[in-house]
């Protein structure tokens, strides 16, 4: 096997058993790696009657075929399983240094089951894998845990850790890599915590890769690195981070305000923009391993109520989730919020969205001082958010902390009020891109995404703004964001490309410079696949279908491909004033193009047969 190693590590924490398994090569060819291969493993082995935090629940870490290749954008990895936040399929992508290091050790991934009696960690060094006690790290934040682990295992070791949020079962707890990068979404920190697994530590002894065509691969790698690193978008991201174009987002109506009650707040354009972050707080730039884009920030807020020492800075999502979404324009507060959430091990999107929802619930009187333990939740009161609410959520303290630690959908359900103004799909809080301004196709993309509302499930956001087009496959639409025209057709291609990105574990920013012929050449020179464009897209569609089959096993249907009323309300303010999309119309067209049964939400038998998914076809219920 080329590219991938074919080997995964199975770990049963209950029994303390570790085994190395070689997966069928056919699975790689069909589902690529990353979240696609994880989905195949999950479908084959999953017990769908289990609660998400049951000891037997699977927690999967999976690389793509290009990890370790020294290619910009290729150093990401997937974490996957049944989401503790949503109760169905979830996957989360994480950049940084972990994926290449694991590949250099000779492994594609890990499948962790069971529950350790005491806090433990998984230590991988070269091809040696061990379970070690981790009592001394339990209760510590991710920054301190990372520092101690590097002190113990060497600074070149790469770590994935949970913080107190994961230990305490906060439903949107995440997994933090090297203290700054996050497998952020879907709550896998809670799953890891439920297993008493504090950390993974990996360190390679040599950098060995086996591409199918080493010479061709090297030529392609150099060419792509040059193109990716020199692209205009890359230079913008390098200069001012992922919030570099927040200013454009504000004016187009893409930036949600006060729990999505509005999508225009002009002052935010200057106050929260990436250039402002650079000018006021940036100390240096950083990035994932081998990536020349370097979109990540290191910041320091020297003084004021939200002073924070030098460390990982906020990305766009954090800036908006703890900025406009909560009615605040305080950029320093977003820096501190990001650091606190990373240290606690919590997803800033779900956390910010859940707090913003609570602020609106309090304003409406749906949430009273009785449920808030006497606290007032007011828009823009960032001192209360950072000093009181975040610690309360992490500890699931008293009524309010325990309520918000469940995420917005479950909190509204428990309260019996406020569901309509949650901003989520399938239980996953929506990211900080508002389809009313960002583009109606994004609404469709959010609705049909298997893990729930997600802007990285596919590249629709970029497709609609005009930053992606693929003339090689006839994908050459000139799209108007505030229109349904051609959005279903665009989404049909976009979901396939997104599935490829997430299975190949490739960064969306870097992928903007990769053409379809480049992708084909990558798969050929690295994995040895002789794909044409149609076979390539078919692979993407297979992964998209597979995740829907998994969700069907959890009882989800076409009706779950939906957005809440708040997200479907007309836009208010700015260029997206009164913007209103017809989700049902786009969805019906998308289902038809993708050969999905509208009722069950499952791919049709014809779709599975066309895609070569014969195992799944044989097990598909009657339609």
């Amino acid at each position: 096997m080329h590219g991938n190693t074919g080997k995964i590590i199975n770990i049963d924490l209950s029994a303390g058993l570790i085994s190395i398994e070689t997966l069928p090569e056919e699975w790689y060819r069909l589902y690529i790696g990353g979240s696609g291969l994880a989905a195949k493993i999950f479908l084959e082995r999953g017990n769908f009657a289990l609660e998400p935090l049951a000891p037997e629940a699977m927690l999967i870490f999976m690389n793509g075929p290009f990890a370790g290749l020294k290619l910009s954008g290729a150093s990401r990895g997937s974490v996957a399983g049944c989401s503790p936040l949503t109760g169905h399929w979830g996957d989360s992508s994480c950049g940084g240094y972990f994926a290449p290091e694991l590949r250099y050790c000779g492994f594609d991934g890990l499948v962790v089951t069971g529950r350790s009696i005491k806090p433990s960690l998984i230590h991988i060094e070269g091809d040696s894998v061990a379970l070690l006690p981790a009592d001394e790290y339990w209760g510590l934040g991710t920054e301190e845990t990372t520092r101690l682990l590097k002190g113990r295992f060497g600074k070149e070791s790469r770590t994935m850790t949970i913080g107190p949020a994961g230990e305490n079962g906060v439903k949107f707890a995440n997994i933090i890599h090297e203290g700054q990068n996050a497998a952020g979404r879907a709550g896998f920190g809670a799953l890891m915590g439920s297993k008493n697994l504090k950390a993974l530590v990996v360190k390679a002894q040599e950098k060995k890769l086996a591409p199918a065509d080493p010479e061709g691969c090297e030529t392609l790698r150099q060419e792509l690195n040059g193109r990716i690193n020199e692209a205009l978008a890359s230079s913008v991201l390098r200069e001012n981070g992922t919030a570099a174009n927040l200013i454009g987002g504000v004016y187009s109506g893409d930036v949600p305000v006060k729990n999505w009650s509005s999508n225009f707040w002009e002052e935010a354009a200057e106050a929260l923009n990436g250039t402002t972050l650079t000018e006021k707080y940036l100390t240096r730039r950083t990035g994932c391993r081998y990536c020349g884009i370097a979109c990540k920030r290191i910041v320091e807020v020297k003084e004021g109520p939200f002073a924070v020492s030098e460390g990982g800075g906020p990305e766009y999502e954090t800036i908006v989730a703890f900025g406009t979404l909560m009615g605040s324009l305080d950029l320093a507060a977003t820096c501190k919020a990001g650091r606190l959430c990373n240290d606690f091990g919590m997803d800033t999107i779900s956390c910010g969205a859940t707090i913003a929802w609570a602020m609106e619930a309090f304003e409406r009187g749906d949430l009273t001082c009785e449920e808030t333990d006497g606290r007032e939740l007011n828009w823009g009161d960032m001192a209360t958010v950072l000093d009181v609410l975040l610690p309360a959520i992490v500890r699931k303290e008293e009524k309010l902390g325990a309520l918000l630690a469940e995420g917005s959908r479950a909190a509204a359900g428990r309260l019996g009020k406020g569901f309509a103004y949650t901003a989520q799909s399938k239980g996953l809080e929506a990211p900080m891109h508002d389809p009313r301004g960002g583009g109606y196709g994004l609404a469709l993309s959010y609705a049909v995404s298997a893990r729930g509302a997600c802007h990285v499930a596919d590249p629709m956001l970029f497709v609609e703004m005009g930053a992606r087009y693929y003339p090689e496959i006839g994908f050459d639409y000139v799209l108007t964001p505030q229109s349904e025209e051609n959005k279903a057709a665009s989404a049909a291609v976009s979901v396939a490309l997104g599935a490829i990105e997430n299975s190949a574990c490739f960064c969306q920013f870097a992928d903007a410079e990769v053409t379809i012929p480049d992708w084909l050449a990558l798969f050929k020179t690295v994995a040895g696949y002789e794909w044409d464009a149609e076979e390539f897209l078919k692979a993407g569609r297979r992964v998209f279908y597979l995740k829907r089959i998994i969700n069907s096993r959890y009882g989800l249907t076409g009706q779950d491909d939906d957005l809440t009323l708040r997200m479907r309300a007309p836009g208010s303010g700015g260029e997206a004033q009164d913007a209103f999309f017809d989700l049902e119309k786009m969805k019906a067209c998308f289902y038809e193009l993708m050969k999905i049964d509208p009722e069950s939400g499952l791919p049709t038998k014809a779709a599975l047969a066309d895609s070569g998914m014969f195992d799944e076809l044989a097990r598909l219920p009657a339609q």
Partner: protein
Amino acid sequence: MQYWKDSQEAVTAITRLFESVSHDPELGESMKKVNQLILFDYSESGPGCAIWVDTRNGKYEFGAGDPPGAPDLIMSLSADDAHLSWSNKLNPVMAITRKKIRVKGSATGLLKLAPKLKKVAVIYEQVLKELGWEDKIVK
């Protein structure tokens, strides 16, 4: 060229646009915040067809031909696409992706300006009317 008789027409219209923008308090201020020397290189549409605008250190100066120093940002596009762009009829992201606009240098200023294109387009239409070039207005 589809919209211009010759390259001088493009230079006339676009330098006049920059002059009008300088009289608009909001846009004038926005331009100064860009704090860059930008060269709009339309030279593929004809010799000398280039316009620069210098907003470094609180200045607001512009002219045709060679810029007064090394530009912080060079935007290369045809004079026809420039016309569409100032008319707000060309999605700049799409144009860059499709290589209709080539950008060299720091695009920070460009991003700050992009949201103002709608207002610039209103002024540009007025400029075309003042020049008696209503026929060039893109609807």
